[in-house]
């Protein structure tokens, strides 16, 4: 009973409380780059979750036999191979989306999130919990990507999954798209806003300030 409870927390912790993107600020490069539409964000999320889970299981299986001196390169080789396989599958079955994602699928290899989970968790745990932890982290990443992707597509084009939700002004509707939403800076704003919102709700996530603001303002004069 206790074990099952543990698995459940392992799975749900990374969704909000230990979210890899908003708390650990990992993997934001792709989170910024592929969130211009929900479809690409979803594909990226699924790809990353699959890669992360498979990599965690594989590494956890051989965890007792990975020599410490080459453990990072062993992990990267495994992750990179999985990424190539996923990339090939996407190119074969989802050619259009694969083109939209361009190099970001290949860049999953260098996503700190993947190496972070395999290094920090899968290397010390049995395949079962490692898979659950990786899957949970993948879901946490996906959640953030989908939120940002959804907001960007909705306000940038008035669409969700390519379906027109808000009629555009130049097609006789009322909505004027905010083209800023489709540019990279908007992802920074949204991600920043999201981090702020989550930390406002869960104050224990806030980091201790690195610098104390000066108390004596007049001293500068």
């Amino acid at each position, binding site marked *: 009973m206790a074990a099952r409870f543990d698995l459940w927390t392992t799975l749900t912790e990374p969704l909000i409380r230990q979210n890899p993107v908003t708390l650990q600020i990992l993997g934001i490069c792709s989170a910024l780059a592929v969130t211009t539409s929900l479809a690409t964000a979803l594909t990226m999320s699924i790809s990353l979750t699959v890669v992360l889970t498979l990599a965690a299981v594989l590494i956890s299986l051989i965890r*007792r036999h990975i020599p410490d001196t080459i453990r990072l390169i062993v992990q990267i080789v495994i992750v990179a191979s999985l990424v190539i396989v996923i990339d090939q599958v996407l190119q074969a079955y989802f050619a259009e989306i694969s083109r939209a994602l361009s190099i970001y699928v290949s860049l999953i290899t260098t996503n700190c999130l993947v190496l972070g989970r395999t290094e920090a968790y899968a290397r010390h745990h049995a395949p079962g919990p490692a898979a659950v932890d990786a899957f949970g982290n993948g879901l946490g990443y996906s959640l953030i990507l989908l939120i940002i992707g959804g907001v960007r597509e909705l306000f940038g084009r008035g669409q969700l999954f390519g379906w027109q939700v808000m009629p555009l002004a130049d097609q006789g509707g009322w909505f004027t798209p905010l083209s800023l939403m489709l540019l990279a800076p908007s992802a920074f704003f949204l991600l920043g806003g999201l981090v702020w919102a989550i930390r406002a709700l869960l104050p224990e996530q806030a980091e201790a300030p690195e610098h104390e603001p000066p108390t004596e303002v007049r001293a500068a004069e």
Partner: protein
Amino acid sequence: MAETEGNPWRRFLALPNESRTKTLVMAFLVAAVCALMVSGATVLLRPIQAANRAAEEQARIEALVRGIPGMADLLQQSGGTLSTVVIDLEDGRAAQDVTPATLNAALADTGNWTALEAGTDLAGLGQRPDYAQIFLLRQGDDISLVLLPMTGKGYGGRIDAILAIEGDMNTIAGIAITNHSETPGLGGRIEDSSWQSAFPGTQLYDDGGELRFNVARGEASTDYQVDGITGATRTTRGISNMVRFWLGPEGYGPLIAAIQRGEF
């Protein structure tokens, strides 16, 4: 038996992780397994990826043909699937070593052009390419429409057109003028759909297989003619000669014969 086989592996696994042998063997094993996985995926999925790329190319060409005024409606009515073939004009068969992708490169080589003698050069081209890209519309296994690009010489310069012929290889389904520099209002009226509308239904060959098509001077009087354009004699003669040249033995003649034999 199993023990002797299992032993070296067990002994290897029991080695301390930091031993040099284990480090090297682990690195090799991981690399080998990963290499196998990657090459396996690539080899297995390559046919599907190639099919995807071909479909993409197909869609691009379809968009190209549909973008030509007059052809879109024609394709809509005929239905079926459009395919692109590069043919060797010499023998009227699909070219072996030239694909739509490499056609432009092949035509940049003057070796792939044939000079035309004065007697056969109806269209006034001087030379013609040995390869041409044509479009076939199929319904099931039967060809329902053939789109033949052709080039001729009008009054003001070169005329580019696409002639659509029905599956019987005798009835014109339509014509699209893709490029010309004829006098606006006179020869330029070859662009008008009112003039082009005379083409559908016009016959090319008589019962004896003789090419009879031409553009009439004035009004068409036979099944093989379309109306001329008043004041644009040279333009209409240019169109007439263009069609007659390209459907003749130096043009698509061998191809048409091959399609009639059912070779496509």
